[in-house]
């Protein structure tokens, strides 16, 4: 399997506090990688470092086999779609107008706008101003923005935040189809074990900025058959938090 992302000793320090510590992450092609950890574990900081939105204190990031630096960052990220923390949109514009702005910056065909709006099921609301959108619709618009160039790699940070159970289910099913239908590799972060358990094939568990487990989700299930996945997760993250 091809490695799409490899981080080596990735570290981020704010003042004296480590947000991420010596993180070695491996993400493989056409897989869904669940990035799981409690709130404040360092998930968003890690994803921001992958996108160059935060600069690492130490360590390296390789994406598509290229070492990312300030010179090649934008070139590499042309093949990466992202939704970090909360969706970005101009509230005084419609969904279609928002996507048109992104499409012209990304140099992607206008036809992609219609396609992604259909994928996230916002095609009927495309001419509505986003200020009037519900949180779920904004989240779907965020996903549409990330999908706009049909990138090879999709990075989604807590994409189900603020969604109702039906919205979560819908988003989950949608994410699950992406590797098969569009050949994408997906990284999804969440603090909800059940969510990751239902969509990820590989998993990375982070606590206090340290990677506690990384590998196939099935292997995690096999680790201790007497324990539920939740108990294993709590064991892994609880140990670190008590240190």
């Amino acid at each position, binding site marked *: 399997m091809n490695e799409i992302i490899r981080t080596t000793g990735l570290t981020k320090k704010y003042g004296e506090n480590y947000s991420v510590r010596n993180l070695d992450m491996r993400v493989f092609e056409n897989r869904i990688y669940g990035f799981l950890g409690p709130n404040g574990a360092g998930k968003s900081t890690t994803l*921001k470092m992958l*996108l*160059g*939105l*935060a*600069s690492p204190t130490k360590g390296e990031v390789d994406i598509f086999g290229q070492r990312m630096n300030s010179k090649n960052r*934008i070139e590499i*990220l042309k093949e*990466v779609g*992202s939704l*970090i*923390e*909360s*969706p*970005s*949109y*101009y*509230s*005084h*514009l419609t969904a279609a*107008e928002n996507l*048109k*702005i*992104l499409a*012209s*910056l*990304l*140099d992607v065909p206008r036809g992609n706008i219609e396609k992604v709006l259909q994928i996230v099921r916002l095609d009927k609301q495309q001419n509505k101003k986003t200020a009037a959108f519900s949180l779920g619709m904004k989240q779907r618009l965020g996903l549409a*923005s990330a999908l706009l160039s049909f990138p090879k790699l999709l990075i989604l940070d807590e994409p189900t935040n603020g969604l109702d159970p039906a919205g979560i289910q819908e988003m989950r099913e949608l994410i699950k189809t992406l590797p098969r239908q569009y050949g994408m590799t997906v990284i999804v972060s969440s603090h909800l074990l059940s969510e990751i358990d239902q969509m990820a094939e590989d998993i990375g568990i982070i606590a206090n900025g340290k990677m506690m487990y990384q590998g196939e989700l099935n292997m995690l299930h096999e680790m201790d058959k007497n324990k539920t996945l939740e108990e294993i997760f709590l064991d892994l993250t609880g140990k670190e938090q008590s240190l």
Partner: protein
Amino acid sequence: MIKLLKCEYRKTKGRYIFLTALLVTAVQIVWALYGKYTDTVLMNGWMTFLYQLPLVNAIFLPLLSIIVSSRLCDIEHKGVIFKQLSVISEKGKIFDAKFIYGVSIVIFCNIISWASTIIFGYIIGFSSDVPINLYLLYLLFTIAPTVAVYIFQHTLSMLFKNQAVTFFAGIIGTFCGLFSMFLPNIPLLRKLFIWGYYGVLQFVGMFGWTKETRMADVYFAVMDIDWLFFAILIAASVVMYIIGRILFCRKEV
């Protein structure tokens, strides 16, 4: 860069930023030109304007910069857009594009105001042709401090999510610049603030005025131009721009 500039235009659709800037300019023009035009004033009209307008500019143009820059950046902060733009374009280019777009609006308004003054002078019947060289110089000395002030406002607006911070800093600066113009006995004071450069670069002075003098005895004349401080202003603008750009590029979004 062209793509980013086109996007700036599209983003501002429905935000009436250009219209707001024109409204501020209209108020500025009315404020500057409203008055009683006696025969004496008509005789010295062009020079009177060159003497009086820098003060009006020192009030309105920083305000125009505050409004344009903060409205342009507010749409990005409100929509948490910088994060998304930063993975598509280099942050430095985002900073540049937004600056070029905003400063173009402000400079365009400067030119409108300048042209209105000349047209008004002809309509009201100033008793000579416009001294075009002096008016071109005046335009240059209006645009230069405006660009400096815009760079300051643009940097703050890009860095701070809360636009009240930029508004407050801009108003404080405007007051400092304005009051420094009322203290000609301390010439260094106005040279310390970029907002005071409308006065520093004023090149027409009023002479023959004392407490007892009547308006008829007053005359206006061209003074020595402080090119050194013009150069200092340009240098300060370049330094502010570079620092602002670096700070924005380093800022984590």
